[in-house]
């Protein structure tokens, strides 16, 4: 009897999980489908789900009209660059806060996080003016800089919680074993922290890749990443659903693939410390 209940329970929860998963995935699926339709079919009512005239002409048009690879390269450089710099700053910061905390450590961490509570639009005008006067508008450097600053608190927090989980005893054992701070970092701490570093890196890559507020406001063409590329399809000439879908599909494809292959790391990174 108990066994039957368990089986039924399993079937129901599996079905529910699939349903929720499908609901979340549906917009992406719909977007991909729409990108293979003609403009007319893209907003036909009733919509056709699979039986339409499949075409790749949207992709051709999109690449012709606005250079996808130019924007993709910008996205890679900006997301990658800002994440790497943020990691370089955050590792020593989180390290020192985790292993030699002072009375103020908690406050510093909260203060860092509090900067994320302010709506970015509140500082848009000053940042825009500063960028204009120092010539950072529409440059990759400028975007790397601003995204790095924006994500830094999250990177520090994630790494801090990771490092805190590493038992202090092990580092002390390494010290007793004669490891200098440098060797302790290379031989003991880093190998133990690799999963944490990897998931922090991934999550921030995704955050930077998807960041649309600063990238849309501070770049036009030269440094514009994929977010700007997508936005350009909801333009004065009207909304082109099929082409917009094709552009969006192209924009999310790289990060989707990356996320797909690293989902285990990501889930672990996001739930770390909360679930043991």
């Amino acid at each position, binding site marked *: 009897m108990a066994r039957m209940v368990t089986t039924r329970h399993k079937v129901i929860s599996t079905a529910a999980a699939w349903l929720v998963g499908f609901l979340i995935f549906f917009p992406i699926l719909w977007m991909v489908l729409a990108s293979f339709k003609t403009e007319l079919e893209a907003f036909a009512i009733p919509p056709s789900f699979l039986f339409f005239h499949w075409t790749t002409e949207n992709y051709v048009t999109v690449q012709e009209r606005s250079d996808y690879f130019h924007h993709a390269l910008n996205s890679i450089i900006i997301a990658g660059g800002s994440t790497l710099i943020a990691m370089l700053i955050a590792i020593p910061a989180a390290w020192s806060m985790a292993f030699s905390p002072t009375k103020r450590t908690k406050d510093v961490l909260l203060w860092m996080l509090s900067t994320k509570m302010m709506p970015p639009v509140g500082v848009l005008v000053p940042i825009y003016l500063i960028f204009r006067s120092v010539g950072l508008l529409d440059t990759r450097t400028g975007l790397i800089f601003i995204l790095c600053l924006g994500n830094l608190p999250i990177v520090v927090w994630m790494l801090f919680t990771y490092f805190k989980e590493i038992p202090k005893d092990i580092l002390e*054992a390494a*010290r007793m074993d004669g490891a200098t701070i440098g*060797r302790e970092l290379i031989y003991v701490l880093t*190998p133990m922290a690799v999963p944490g570093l990897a998931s922090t890196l991934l999550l921030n890559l995704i955050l930077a890749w998807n960041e649309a507020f600063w990238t849309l406001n501070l770049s036009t063409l030269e440094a514009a990443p994929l977010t700007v590329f997508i936005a350009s399809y909801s333009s004065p000439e009207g909304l082109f659903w099929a082409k917009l879908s094709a552009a969006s599909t192209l924009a999310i494809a790289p990060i989707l693939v990356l996320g797909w292959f690293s989902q285990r790391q990501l889930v672990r990174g996001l739930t770390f410390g909360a679930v043991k």
Partner: protein
Amino acid sequence: MGQITLQGVQKSFGPVHIIKGADLEIADGSFVVFVGPSGCGKTTLLRLIAGLEDVTGGAILIDGRNVVDVPPAKRGLSMVFQSYALYPHMSVRGNIAFGLKMAGIAKDEINRKVEAAAATLNLTPYLERKPRELSGGQRQRVAIGRAIVREPKAFLFDEPLSNLDAALRVQMRLEVTRLQKQLGTTAIYVTHDQVEAMTMADKIVVLNGGKIEQYGSPLELYEKPANLFVAGFIGSPKMNFVTGDLAKQQGATTIGVRPEHLKVERDGQGGWHGTVSVAEHLGSDTFLYVDAGPQGMLTARYIGELDLHPGDKVSLIPDPARIHRFDDSGKSIRA
């Protein structure tokens, strides 16, 4: 060589004085146990010797050289942690070899030493395994292996057996003692378990509230406790304390008698009369908890089986030669 001397060692964390001036002389090759209730500062004292904490005052001498400013690795000591603190990403071989590798010793020699240490500790079949693939006792052995392979001047043990189950703890206790005697290396061992202290130590340091209460061999502590604290802490079951007129007749504020030094007599004459409230029959021993009226609750230990039950009247006769006397301040009075 591994002679360790503490001279007025003090440690404070902010306004809190953890160690209030410790003087100690640890002879080369001896096995010294720091014992005391939790929070007495025994682990802090060990960490001060290890160099994992800096002293606030005083000197620590290893073989005559003051090491307070020497980093932990250069003190020539090795430590076994309560949590084992094995490197989780390294094999057993890697764990044991790490210290030697850091010291820049040649590969062949490292391998030779690691294998010798592993053989001593019966770890040879597990050398290529990761710590998570080992049982608690095996992990403990790896931690000890990591300590012995460096041939240190002294071993520092921080409650190394407290995470093991009771049976394994007794076995490891024997192994650690045997190993230490075999190597002849000085060892300092921290525990809160007085049985471990009594069985393993050449000399015991009893700590309480950041102060050394007494330093001596296990039997010295048992037979001649310096004060009430040591008298109550060493020995199981605990020593009986009696105050009031009975103590005054002996010229003391408090007198103490160990349970094993109370002769139990059924309805006997003389001694202290009372009623058995609980009787524990272990076969080898009988423990009696006796309500002795003005003397309070007394514990008596009888070697062998004694057919007594709650409610039975008994008299307890203390062995006059084994009565410990303490003055107002709790210090022992010696005739």
